[in-house]
Each structure stands twice: as C-alpha cells, then as structure tokens.
C-alpha cells in the first residue's frame, strides 16, 4: 500500500493547508504543476484566499473519499452533501466559482454554476438585477429592443 503523500497549499493571504496529494490533484491546475515539477513547496494558490481555499479543500476531500467508497448508494448522499455545500452567501458562491475556474476543478465549477443558474430561473429581469446587484446599462435604443423582446416573450 502506497504511503499517502502530502502537499502544502498556500492561500493568497498566507495561510498554509496540508492536504493529501490525491485531494490536491482534484485541481488540474495543481496536478499539472506537480507533474511538471514547477509546483514548489508549499504550492502557492495566488487567487484564492484562506476562507475559500478551506472550502475548496473540504469539497475535494469529500469527493475523493466518495470515489474510494465502494457503496454506490453514497451517490445520493453526495448529491445531498453538494446541495448543502453550496448553501452559502452570494459573495462566497462568487468566489467559489472563480476559485473552481482558476484551479480547474470541473465538478465544483459545474456545481457552483448550476447553483447560480437555479438562482436565475423564474425571475424577471428586474428581479435578476436586484439579486445580483447589476446596473441596467442599455442605451435607449437597446432598451427598446429589450422591451419588445420581453413583451413578446411574456405575451
């Protein structure tokens, strides 16, 4: 049985996290840099702060453990666990998306993007703007086009 190798990840705000290598390589970005030999020790993770990195590591740990488990019933539990995992405030969700993208963790990116997609559904444009605090920056011409489209779509 191979001894589990550990690596240290360093968040953007200087906090260290020691994790199993099998967990760290859930991130293709980290996996590539380890394989290329350019990783360094500890491995710096520049765009991700400690709070978010801790969450990402928690996600990767859970998924690596589930993959090892032989019992297939755990799939449903994993889905439920994922659903709980993304019950966070918007700012954290936003940071998780960016972290998942930067670290190239496909399943986490899919999960977080799907969560946002679900938040978007069923809302009018004005409600969406409020939810995501986005300003309407259309020109009067564009606004007219948008108004026409919505009038047709909601007819």
């Amino acid at each position, binding site marked *: 049985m191979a001894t589990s190798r550990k690596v240290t990840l360093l968040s953007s705000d200087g906090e260290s996290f020691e994790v199993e290598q099998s967990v760290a390589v859930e991130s293709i970005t980290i996996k590539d840099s380890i394989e290329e030999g350019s990783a360094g020790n500890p491995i710096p993770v520049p765009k991700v702060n400690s709070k978010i990195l801790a969450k990402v590591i928690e996600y990767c740990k859970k998924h690596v453990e589930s993959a090892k488990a032989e019992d297939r019933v755990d799939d449903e539990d994993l889905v439920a666990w994922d659903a709980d995992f993304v019950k966070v405030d918007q700012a954290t969700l*936003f940071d998780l998306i960016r972290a998942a993208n930067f670290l190239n963790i496909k399943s986490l990116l899919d999960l977080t993007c799907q969560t946002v997609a679900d938040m978007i559904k069923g809302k009018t*444009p004005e409600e969406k703007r409020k939810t995501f*605090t986005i300003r309407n920056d259309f020109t009067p011409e564009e606004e007219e086009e948008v108004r026409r489209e*919505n009038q047709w779509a909601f007819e």
Partner: protein
Amino acid sequence: MHIKSIVHELREIRDRIKDIAGRKLERRHVHRQGRSHIVPETTVPTPSCPEAVQQGPWANLPPELLLHIIKRVEASQISWPSRRDIVACASICRSWREVTKEAVKTAEQCGRLTFPISLKQRGPRDFPIQCFIRRDTANSTFFLYLGLSPDLSEGTSKLLLAARKIRRALSTDFVISFIADDFSQAGTSYVGKLSRSNFIGTKFTVYDSQPPWDAAIQSNHKSHGRQNPKQVPPSVPSGKFSVATISYELNVLRSKGPRRMHCNIRSNPTSAIQEGGTAPTPTEFSRISVEPYLSPLPLPASNGKKQLNEHSSTSCKLLKSTHGAWDPLVLRNKTPRWHEQLQCWCLNFRGRVTMASVKNFQLVAALEPYQNIPTTEHDNVILQFGKIGKDIFTMDYLYPLSAFQAFAISLSSFGTKPACE
C-alpha cells in the same frame, strides 16, 4: 437593548412578508398562460443614476464563466413558458445580453425558438417545428402558436405571431405582428405581411419588414454607405421587402380536384437544400432603415432558372457575390393521390391533420435536374398545413423555411376566394 432587538425582528418580519407577497405575485405572473398582456418591469423607465446603484461582483464575472452559467439555464429551460427565462437573462445589462445571445443557438441549430428573431430564422433540418393556427373569424385574426394543438399543449403553447386580414379597395392584406393587438405597420411589432395581388385571389406576395440578408451582408451594407434613418425621405416605403410570391392554379381538368400551389422564395436559394448547403440566417433585427432595392418578384415561370431580376442595385450585387448564382427556392404542393375506395384525394399528414379541407397542403421543393439536389430532398415535406378542428389548423415547418415564411404561406390558404375552391 431588548427593545432594539424586538424592533429589528419586526423589521425582518415585515421584509419577509414583502418578499412572500412579491414571490406570490411572481408565481401568478409566471403561471399565467399568456392570455393577458403582462408587460414586465423593464418597460418602466428607470432613471439612470449610475452613482446610486452600486454594482455587485457579479457585474464583473468573466464572460466565459457567465457563458457557462447561462448555457446551463438555456439547457434546462427548453420549452415555453420557462424559456422566457433566457429572454430575461438577455435583458439585464449589456454584458449579459451579449453572453446570452452567444449561448443561444439559432432555430436551425437547436430546433428551439427563443427570441423574436428566431421566427425569421430557418427551421431545423431533421425534424419539423410543430405549430398550430387558431382562426378568430369574428375579428379576421389568426394566431400562430408553438405547440402540437390547443388540447395537447395545454399551458405550454407559446403565441408566436398574430395576423389580421385587412380588406382594402384594391387588395387584401394579412398584416403579421409580434403582438396580438398591434397591427400597425409603422410600429416595431410589425413583422411583415401577405398581400393578395389579384382580384380572383390566386396570387400573393410576402413582404418582410426587414431586409432578408444575413448579418455579414448587413454589416457590409452598413460600412458601404450607411443610411441614417433620419435622412431617408418619408416617401420611401421602408419596411417592405418582397421575399416570396405564392400562386394558386385551379385544376382545370377536374373542377373538384385539388388546386396547385407554387411558392417562389426569393430570400432562400435552392442551394440551401443541396448537400451541405446553407441559407442566410439573421441573428438580430437590423436597425437601419434601408431603401428597398428589391422590387416585387415576377410570377414563377415553368423554368426555374433566372427568376431573379437583373437589378443593378448594390444589394442584389451583394446577394449574388456572396451566394454565387442564386436560384430562388421554388416550392410546389405535393400531389394528393386519389383513393378509389374512399373516393377522395389523400395526403399522408402523419396524423397531424385530421379533417378534410381544400386548404390542406404539403409543400415540397420543385426541382430541376440541373440543380443537383439529392433525391432524398425531392419528397421532403418542407411545410405542412391542415385542419384539425373548427378554426384550428396545424402548421409544421422545416429548414429552409422560417416560422414567419411558413405562417405567411399558410395564411394564403385563407386568402383564396371561393371561386378557386
């Protein structure tokens, strides 16, 4: 301290009540089946105070991540009314609009109708888009819905277009609009019209409110002598581009026999149905008011060659230079076969038409040997129209027709006079 926390709690409760009330309204709004006009909040002009509205981090989400998210919304909101979520995504701000338009494929590519412009895009190649038309005889109005039939698509049908028959002194027009109660040809809801061009009701012309070119040609046109709408003289009839003609012929041999139909579709080349062929597809409405260089088409001759007038106008040159020799697509109705036992003319509508009517038809491409079209296309039904109930008709269309073209052609069936039935 105690009182402050009570006041804080009361405020939270008040906010929650407001939220619940808002959500209830929203649910009612979402569940309405589009029978009444619901004009969403974007029509209320919001004062632009950029300083007042602080943007959250989502406004700066990288486009590729936003695309990832919106693609997921698009993939799950397949049918109406939930598909309006995608239109809502395109209504938030410029960056979201750009990304949403990128995420949504054309009607031809995905077989789904999303934006109003989808109605002017070619249908899918492999399967028809299935619609039905409801006729309101009292108001001379016709409504095109996306859906199998009123019964089968209860709650999920989507009103696509409406048309009103307007009788004038010398002609009859079917004005087609995006909005059910606005048939003004000057407004932004005007899509096009079908005009009956002879008294006995056997010849029709289809006019589009927009030039029937693709975006590449449009941008070419924009850069070569952009026309400022303000500079176009008022006498120029902008918004009137002839795109097709339809003619009916009485069956002179059998007075009770099926009539013959021919459609000459100038905005579609025959090459569109060749192996690997394509047809131009608009992805947005042109904002420029362009002088209509294209004159009404001549009536279809027996020979399919050289249907297009030899215009020297820039627009025609652009069309020809981009698409090579442009043979307009000619469609004819599939000849029904005589059923000896039933003593009637029959067509296989594959269950989509259930009542006999002289209005029922199937259109296939009318092809010449030189056009080099594979034989599989010769019998491919591009448009099918027929009666399923009193004032209810199904309409199924395929590439290379668009919903607008299919609807206009189907309306001609209502425009023919009893003399030719």
